[in-house]
């Protein structure tokens, strides 16, 4: 039995009167690559953003590689994080790759990559810079260390963002539609890189609309619908004839 990296129980989240997440449980083991699929507005992004608490769930528990940041509720039932230190510790075990890259525009490529190791994990700068160079090579961006984000194409920015995410050697990587903002001819280079990460055993949760990628690369497919997990299973099953009719309907339209 492999180590459990992510353990989520009973996540709920409403925006005003609209219940966006209605009770989600999910476990991920080390090396799992979980593709999260579902229609627009089904709550995929909200779920992913609840995991690193960019969005505060109304209820539920999240445990990532042994770290947890329990919620407490005030008298009106509003949730908040009891301990901000625990919140940052939990986030430090994860990394997120955004649809719009979100590289820090006031930092060079190198500074983007060393920021978290240096300022969050206390790694000496020289050591972090060496590792950053190796990561840049890995994502095919060697020689771009001194560039500014705005000098790069979308695909290049996303590959740097992935290098930034890898810089802290995270236990769990969260991807929210990492290729949706890219030109079609740039999608491939990012997907290939993510496939390489999957092959080396990274634990990843990927919200995506790339069905072929989900089918070929993921170890598990999760179908989110109306804020609940409608069905999940290995891709061979989910993309086969025995998948849930609801998921088959989602795939076919």
């Amino acid at each position: 039995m492999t180590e459990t990296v992510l353990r989520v129980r009973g996540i709920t989240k409403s925006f005003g009167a609209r219940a966006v997440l209605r009770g989600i449980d999910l476990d991920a083991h080390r090396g799992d690559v979980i593709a999260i699929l579902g229609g627009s507005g089904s709550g995929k992004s909200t779920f992913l953003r609840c995991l690193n608490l960019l969005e505060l769930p109304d209820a539920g528990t999240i445990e990532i590689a042994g770290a947890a940041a329990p919620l407490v509720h005030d008298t009106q039932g509003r949730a908040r994080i009891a301990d901000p230190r625990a919140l940052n510790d939990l986030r430090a075990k994860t990394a997120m790759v955004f649809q719009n890259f979100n590289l820090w525009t006031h930092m060079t490529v190198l500074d983007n990559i060393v920021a978290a190791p240096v300022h969050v994990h206390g790694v000496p700068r020289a050591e972090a810079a060496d590792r950053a160079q190796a990561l840049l090579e890995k994502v095919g961006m060697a020689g771009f260390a001194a560039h500014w984000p705005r000098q790069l194409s979308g695909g290049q920015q996303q590959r740097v963002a992935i290098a930034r995410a890898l810089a802290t050697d995270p236990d769990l990587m969260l991807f929210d539609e990492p290729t949706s903002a890219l030109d079609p001819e740039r999608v491939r280079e990012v997907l290939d890189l993510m496939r390489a990460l999957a092959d080396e055993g990274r634990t990843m949760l990927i919200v995506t609309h790339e069905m072929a990628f989900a089918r070929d690369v993921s170890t598990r497919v999760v179908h989110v619908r109306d804020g609940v997990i409608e069905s999940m299973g290995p891709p061979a099953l989910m993309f086969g004839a025995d998948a849930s009719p609801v998921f088959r309907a989602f795939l076919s339209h």
Partner: protein
Amino acid sequence: MSEELAFLAATALAIVRALPITLVLSLSSAIGASMLAAVLVAAQQTRIGRPLAHVWIFVFRGTPLLLQMFMVYYGVAALGPIRHGVLWPLFRDPLFCAWLALTCCCSAYIAEVLRAALAAVPTGQIEAAKACGMGRGTRVRRVIMPQMLRLALPAYGNELVMLIKSTSLASTITVVDVTGVAQLVIAHSYRTIEVFCLAAAVYLALTAGLTALLRRIERGLAQ
């Protein structure tokens, strides 16, 4: 003709001698106002500080700087506790009073500039900092402040230009700055136009220098 030249040269010399006063007042007010503005914006982020900062900005942005200077120099001095207190040596000094009024007034404007810049920092930049586990302090230092300063710079530069020009009001409370000297010279010579032109040229040089400096910083930041 040569007498005219000699008059202009003497006037120019007198004005340049007063330049340090204008410079010191500008620089110290710019520093004071900027620091106070930073405090105001920080206060705005807290529940207790928000209304206080709001009132401060409302008052100092909504009343004329000239009146503020009069109130500090003539008004505060009339208060018994100040007049007979330890602060009297400060409030007796018109330069200090001008500095205080400029600092308070400009802090309100600069705070508005900083607040707008803070609101304009893209959420994605801040979320990327949160997502990797940066605490609040680190986020502010490494991401929010640098982004904010870059966004604020053009409008902040404007405020500094306004501040330099506003220092001339200090002459109304007996500070002998560039404008003060010009008025003294006019009082003796009854020559208005050429003296004011010389004084104006000094302000023009100062603001042009500042504008050029800011432009260079902006270009450096833009990359």
